[in-house]
């Protein structure tokens, strides 16, 4: 498959996953929404609309490259080829989950593909610097990519980690996905400047802002930053404008949005836009698209079915895995 089509397919897979996860999460939660009910309890932060960020960047990564992700992790995990079945089983809290049910949606770990995430805002930055140090120490040209929301760019760890990576010339790419909001707080009421990428200047590293939620533009900027890191030239900072199609978490009434704000975002859905451009460039046919939609739907249903069939863990298993 051509690279653009491969990226398109991955975006479709993520979208399908998030849409289905929204449905699965809703099971057992009506008529009254209850966070603790249904087959998938707990918080659920979905990334539909934000696919280009994950796909545009991670497309350039190897299995050995590290990705650290935030509380909204599915798109990053899927793009990094985290085992979809085991990831889904984890979100269902089942024994075949990546962590046998101990982690859940915000705590997906797949060391096989060097993926991890965290529920703490800003926590994805420091470990990426450390992984990069390990690569450099061994003379490997792997890189680490830390993803976080625009809200996370106001955390102390952002500053400390960028400075540390820049000082150490560590092969890290810091990627901020700007979906305009941190829960209910708009970027312009929490961030003193318009573009976090301008903060790169505080560390003497390149900073690029990518508008338009456009996977090819993202891919281009990411490719450059990753090549730079692999070549030993140190870290970069990217900020990528994107849009959040669901609420902050499922169940969010989004009363803080301006009227019509969501519609504007949905109208700019990156997936149909990308598909149309692939059609126009004759990189994709309608038949191929149908095949892709079918394939990703099957993958997602397979993963969900796998998760549903996986047994619940035994209660006393809670006591294991505190120490290695």
């Amino acid at each position: 498959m051509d690279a653009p089509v491969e990226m398109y397919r991955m975006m479709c897979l993520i979208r399908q996953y998030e849409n289905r996860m929204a449905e699965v999460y809703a099971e057992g939660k009506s008529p009254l929404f209850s966070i603790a009910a249904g087959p998938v309890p707990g918080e659920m932060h979905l990334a539909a609309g934000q696919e280009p960020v994950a796909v545009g960047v991670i497309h350039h990564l190897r299995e050995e490259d590290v990705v650290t992700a935030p509380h909204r992790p599915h798109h990053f995990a899927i793009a990094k080829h985290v085992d979809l079945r085991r990831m889904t089983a984890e979100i269902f809290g089942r024994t075949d989950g990546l962590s046998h049910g101990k982690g859940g949606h915000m705590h997906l770990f797949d060391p096989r593909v060097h993926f991890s995430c965290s529920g703490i805002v800003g926590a994805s930055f420091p470990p990426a610097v450390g992984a990069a140090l390990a690569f450099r120490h061994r003379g490997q040209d792997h890189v680490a990519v830390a993803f976080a929301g625009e809200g996370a760019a106001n955390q102390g760890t952002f500053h400390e980690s960028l400075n540390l990576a820049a000082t150490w010339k560590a092969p890290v790419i810091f990627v901020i996905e700007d979906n305009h909001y941190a829960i209910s707080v708009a970027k312009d009421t929490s961030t003193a400047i318009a573009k976090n990428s301008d903060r790169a200047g505080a560390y003497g590293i390149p900073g690029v802002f990518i508008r338009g939620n456009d996977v090819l533009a993202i891919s281009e900027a990411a490719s450059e930053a990753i090549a730079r890191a692999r070549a030993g030239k140190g870290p970069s900072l990217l900020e990528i404008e994107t849009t959040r199609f669901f609420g902050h978490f499922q169940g969010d009434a989004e009363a803080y949005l301006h009227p019509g704000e969501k519609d504007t975002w949905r109208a700019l859905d990156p997936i149909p836009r990308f598909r149309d451009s692939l059609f126009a460039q004759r990189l994709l046919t309608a038949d191929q698209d149908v095949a892709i939609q079918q394939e990703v739907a099957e993958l997602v249903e397979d993963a969900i079915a796998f998760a549903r069939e996986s047994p619940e863990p035994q209660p006393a298993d809670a006591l294991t895995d505190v120490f290695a």
Partner: protein
Amino acid sequence: MTTTIRKLTMARAISEAIAQEMARDPNVLVWGEDVGVYGGIFGATQGLYQKFGQDRVIDTPISESAFIGAAIGASAEGLRPIVELMFVDFFGVAMDQIYNHLAKNHYMSGGSVTLPVVLMTAIGGGYSDAAQHSQTLYSLFAHVPGLKIVVPSNAYDAKGLMTTAIRDNNPVMYFFHKGLLGLGWMPSDDWAEVHVPEEAYTIPFGQAANIGEGTDISIITIGAMVPKASKVREQLRQEGISVEVLDLRTLVPLDKQAIIQTAKKTHRVLIVDEDYRSFGMSGEVAAILAEDALDYLECPVRRLAIPDVPIPYSRPLEQFTIPSTTRIADTVRAMMD
């Protein structure tokens, strides 16, 4: 005289206390993440933004060190900030400002600086929010000197303790349990939704509440374990076991006398806690008994708490770690044997 029952959820009781104190004192301000239009993720600041405006109810960036630390400078200059740390689990990004400064400046200044700050935060699990969003952790803050530690178990106490907290001239950490708030979208214990008078009132710190007298055994507990203990008390009454339930309400100051007295009365003590078992609240209460009520104990002290594991995500795993009414009842029965 007519007595009307005015049942309020704990979330409403908290926000009502804050609103009344804000109306009373223009120096009371509220800030934190999503405390404005959103009204606080757990509703503790609902309606305040609409009533008092954005100059007194302020949404902050995700910068807990800066905005909690800001409460230090602001209170030293005469404000009385109420700051929300969204989940207690996030304390680690701001702990230096909390315990090295907010907690210690009064002492380090020889009493010349006072910092009237309420730091309120959500605690507790039970809804599969996993290891970074389900802890109670109050023992950590009770361990370091300089912070008052408040953990209400019901709406009446929540309002009175919040009013006391706001009027206190010391830093007060106020922990509300998500499973007591009456949020609708979160499982909540009905027991916590009780009559709450409309007018402002205070509840003194350091006074445990005797939730139900008993003669055979005492359960000493706090927060969301209080309703559970009370239910066990009702249940065991039918089995002929008379359980006394002590709600500590505040850990600092701690009502040592009440702890000792209940032990002297019933001669058997079970401590129930939703914090980690070791090096925490349950240990401290047991230690007080070993020091000051040893000769009155007819059987070993027992503790039920989170068994020193991070809180797991999966429902059966999580439920296994949190003391349940079944396990509390079984433990009481075993202690009566």
